């Protein structure tokens, strides 16, 4: 197998939250390489630092120490507007709580990331409809989130994460708020994206969900304790 250049590389990343007088270490030196097209599950007990790690990779936060490279670019010291650009273009987020904007319709939620990239209105619409088609919600495009089931909302969120054709999809407990059957549908969808060539990093503490991934990274107390392929 050819050694590819990693799309994401973490180098001894530390994150310490300051809570008043006390320091709360969330990550204690994590090093990790993720190649293009991989499907990784990050697992570990609650409070072990999984979400913190995801937020660093997703450019929602910067590390206290260490370096993070995305596509070979060091993002650990970037300005907020630079990070916002990367989030908008290269990363798609899927959250546990779906995180749709409640005043907007499904279609408007899906097209919003394109609005922040100044994509033309007509192009946005067309792409939005396509993506809702992809997740099987073309008939629900004018529904508000409150008029959709949890599974449908998460499918809208997946459609939204694909709006700007990102290279990486980050999913933090994507099935955490769903029943088993609906959760399985979502996993089928993520697997399909993986087969289409997207790099997928998923956080979960559910082994049944984790086994869909091609590699599992186990985290405990802010450190990687195991890192193996299925």
């Amino acid at each position, binding site marked *: 197998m050819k050694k590819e250049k990693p799309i994401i590389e973490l180098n001894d990343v530390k994150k310490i939250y300051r809570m008043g007088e006390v320091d709360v270490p969330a990550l204690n030196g994590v090093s990790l390489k993720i190649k293009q097209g991989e499907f990784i599950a990050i697992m570990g007990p609650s409070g072990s630092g999984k979400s913190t790690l995801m*937020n660093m990779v*997703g450019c*929602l*936060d910067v590390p206290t120490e260490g370096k993070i490279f995305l596509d070979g670019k060091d993002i650990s010291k970037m300005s*907020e*507007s630079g990070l*916002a*650009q990367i*989030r*908008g*273009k290269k990363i798609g*987020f899927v*959250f546990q709580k779906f*995180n*749709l*904007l*409640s*005043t*907007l319709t499904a279609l408007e939620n899906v097209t*919003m*990331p394109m*609005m*922040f*990239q*100044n994509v033309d*209105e007509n192009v946005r619409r067309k792409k939005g409809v396509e993506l809702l088609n992809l997740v099987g919600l073309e008939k629900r495009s004018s529904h508000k989130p409150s008029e959709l089931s949890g599974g449908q909302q998460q499918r809208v969120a997946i459609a*939204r994460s694909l*709006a*700007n054709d990102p290279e990486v999809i980050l999913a933090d407990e994507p099935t955490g708020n769903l029943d088993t059957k609906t959760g399985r549908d979502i996993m089928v969808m993520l697997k399909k994206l993986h087969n289409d060539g997207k790099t997928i990093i998923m956080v979960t503490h559910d082994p049944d969900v984790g086994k869909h991934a091609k590699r599992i990274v186990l985290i405990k107390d802010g450190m990687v304790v195991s890192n193996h392929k299925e």
Partner: protein
Amino acid sequence: MISDYFSYAFKNLKHRKVRTWLTMIGIVIGIAAVVSIISLGQGLENMIIGQFEDMGADKITIMPGSSIFSAGMATIPLNQKDYDVIKRTRGIVNVAGMIYSSIRVEYKEESEYTFVIGMPLDPGSKRIFDSMQNFKLDYGRDLKDGDGNVIVVGSSVAKDDKIFERGVVLGSKITINGVDFKVIGVLETLGNEQDDRSVYINIERARDIFDNKDEFDVLFAQAKQGFDVSEVAEDLEKALRKSRDLKEGEEDFNVQTTEQLQESFGTIFSIVQWFLIGVASISIVVGGIGIMNTMYTSVLERTYDIGIMKAIGARNNDILTLFVIEAGTLGAVGGIIGVIVGGGFAKIIEIAAKNVLSVDLLKAHLSVELLVGAVLFSFIVGMASGALPAKQAASMKPVDALRYE
């Protein structure tokens, strides 16, 4: 992409309807007040300027009191001696004086207060009056030199239910202080309620009734053609000062050319108007603070949404623009409603002035500049009020915003 921000703003404002309406009240009231004050003020000014223009530029008005603002206060009256001084001044072709008094007037069984005006009827004086007051006879005949107990009435006096239950008719009898007058003429409507409600008699008759031997309430002088009216007015003022033995600056009378009168009224007008606008502005400021308060609440409530938008690629500037435009929209919608309410109110006043007070010449001046300017201004007030809350929203860190419950 600015239209996207507006459409997002509208959605959020619609989502919180009650709060949106309540927030806009201050701006609506303030803008409505400003629009009606400015449009009516402009209309009133146009009306008065129009009346001055009818007077003609060659007229000089001499009134008792140190300025036209002291009208109605106790003053030393002008008398026949002043009249003669004015008449002798270089550049004056003619002088006319009149007296007036608000007095009880009886017609049939009724008796009402109205202005009785004593007019000089010699042809020279009469000409000055006719040109200045724009008097036109509607029917009957006008007063003429040598007339005795005859009277000409303003149009309202001849109408039913205006002053008297049944309007005065030609040939009937009006009694003033026990003296009977025969109605010989009715004037055309002048559009100025006070003039239309007045009755006009020979000044000699009025002197007997008012018990006034040789005083005048106002004198009008006409400058000769080819003379500079303001120079003539200065000479006239000097001559009066000398005859009344007063130093400069201590005048107990005032001399105004038509142009100066116009300016004086213009000055009072803008002072009153700016004062009223100042009062109305307080409401706009309060409205702005209301918007600021609502936007702070909104930012706090939507912290999580801000986190989501940042996660999907919104830069700080996008969030800032979003909230500033939402606040601006709040102001502009309030402004549009305010313009409609204020414009409507001004029109109602215009119609009421016409129907209730018979003032035909007052036209609310609702210019496009005023209406567009008012909406634009409220948009800017809204944006300015939203600036600080929007800055707070923009500077939130994405992780913190997403952790907010």
